[in-house]
């Protein structure tokens, strides 16, 4: 996949770049409105990560321009502004999703993949990871063709790990992904352990290999190596 990161904060841009550049993904970046404008005029991207506040212009203008020149690139807005109006405006202008800073890179990658999935496969996408098969539309999981019953949150968690495969996901990131920002539960990381234990058990009970690897209490990695 090919991404464009339009973000003026250099260190953030680099981190995103590093995280997304896996499995043959290519990242291009722009730090100003002008650079972004030029790049998206010339190239096509699977997804554009767009910061709304740029030193020389509004990110929303880039979005308008993109729609004007009829490009079908996916757009994920990343903004520090958690304002409902801006969110609505961004989405109505054709952005696919809206991610509020600060975010976890695993969350960002999951959202980006979801956008690309929706655009390329019309949302009807089935994930395969060795013997595991995840149907994101029907929200069904199968191991070796046999269905495994997972709760909604367990399903979300498994999908989150599968799309971020071979990456370590911190407990903090998993909590935010499952619980969102609403609950004042940001510090209760430990319960994610119970959650993962449940998912693990259900999968291994259906004859699946255990792909979850704990990383010294800070997070988990979903990998078969």
């Amino acid at each position, binding site marked *: 996949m090919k991404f464009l990161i339009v973000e003026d904060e250099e260190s953030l841009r680099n981190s995103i770049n590093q995280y997304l550049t896996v499995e043959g993904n290519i990242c291009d970046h722009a730090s100003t409105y002008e650079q972004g404008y030029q790049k998206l005029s010339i190239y096509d991207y699977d997804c554009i990560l767009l910061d709304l506040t740029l030193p020389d212009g509004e990110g929303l203008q880039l979005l308008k321009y993109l729609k004007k020149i009829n490009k079908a690139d996916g757009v994920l807005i990343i903004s520090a502004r958690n304002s409902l109006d801006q969110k609505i405006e961004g989405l109505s202008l054709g952005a696919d999703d809206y991610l509020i800073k600060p*975010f976890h890179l695993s969350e960002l990658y999951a959202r980006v993949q979801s956008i690309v999935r929706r655009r390329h496969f019309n949302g009807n996408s089935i994930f395969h990871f060795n013997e595991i098969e995840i149907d994101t539309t029907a929200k069904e999981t199968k191991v070796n063709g046999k269905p495994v019953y997972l709760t909604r949150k367990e399903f979300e968690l498994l999908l989150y790990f599968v799309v971020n495969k071979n990456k370590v996901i911190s407990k903090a990131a998993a909590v935010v992904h499952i619980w969102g920002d609403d609950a*004042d539960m940001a510090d209760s990381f430990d319960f994610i352990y119970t959650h993962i234990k449940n998912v693990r058990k259900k999968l291994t009970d259906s004859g699946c290999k255990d792909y979850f690897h704990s990383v010294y209490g800070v997070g988990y990695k979903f990998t078969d190596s």
Partner: protein
Amino acid sequence: MKLFSSYNRILAIITLTGLIVIGFLFYQTLGQYINKQIDDHLYEELLEVRDFTHVKNILPSPDGFDDVIVDYKKINKLSDKRKYFADTTFYNPKKKHDESARYLKTALILNRQPYEVMIMASKFERQEQIKSIILIILLPVIILLLILWLVNRILIKRMWLPFRQLLINIKAFNINQEKVFEPVQTNIEEFRELNNAVLEVSLKVKSDYKEIKLFTENASHEMMTPLAVINSKLDTMLQSNALGKEESEILADLYKATSKLTKLNQSLLLLVKIDNDQLQDKEEIDLKALIEEKISYFQELIQKRELQVETKISAFSVFANRSLIEILINNLFSNAIRHNNDGGSMMVTIKNDSLIFSNTGSRNGLHPQKIFERFYKDNASDGTGLGLAILKQVCLKQNYELSYNYNQEYHQFIINFKSSENKSQLTML
């Protein structure tokens, strides 16, 4: 004491004392004047007695006088020729009672004999006269004073009317509401000045408050980007293959701190957002369904702490903004789970337009007002200290009555949805 009663009290004391002093002096002067008149009359009578004796060589009969009583007494020697005037009482045989009187006593030679002569005149009529005079003068004065007092009372009441209205308006002024202070229409200079001063202060307070809110909002927003950088760097570090146990533990702590900081920032922003009434779209919300949904949403947390959840919910709906109500319910649940004991219990009840969250927890009741203050939390709490403040802010904005009490080992948070009509309770909160 009210200004008017204080003023009146002083006025009444002065008026009454003045009236008494003046009345006394008036009475005294009049009495002396009357005495002098009687004394003159008595002296004239004495002269008459002397002339009569001189001409007729006999003493006039004591019965020969109309309005005075004359008495002679023979004495041996004429020693004291001075005239004595004094008050006395005598028995009036005609009227058959004692009357006060004035007499003149002197010694003089009558028919070449020394006599002590006493001439006495009744003061009764004169006294009656004095009484009438005083009554005629004092009564109108007292009536006049009464009228003045009444007029004063009515006038002052009417003049203070704008002041009272001003007070009501000041009390109604709420920094959290859009409504600005309402000036009172009045022609009285002092009140107009007060009016303007209060108006100015209220506008200043409003703008200062707005500035603080804006500052909080901007500061929180500005912090989001550095937080995003920290988060992304942590995520990047986490991918390192060289991560040992020690580094991982450090990373875990950093994640925790960053999450908390993020949460804090989001809570502050949320408070500002609620303050600014940015969540406006209202709809009918089925509270029963929402609570049931939230119980399943919080299920893992409830299970992890082994809490018993009991619900007594009747069908109930509120007309409000969905986000606000969700924040409300989320915070109530978070609070009841976070501050519970492992294996404790919680109860959600809806009755009489009230939503009640009860939970076990610490053995002591909490301060019913302080717990809703921003950043107030007990030492054991790991939260942001803003959850209940947000709860209070939502209730304040929606005119719900929020209260806390500790009852039989249960901490209870009660939200009365129907208190919207009762604004006075809201200002107490």
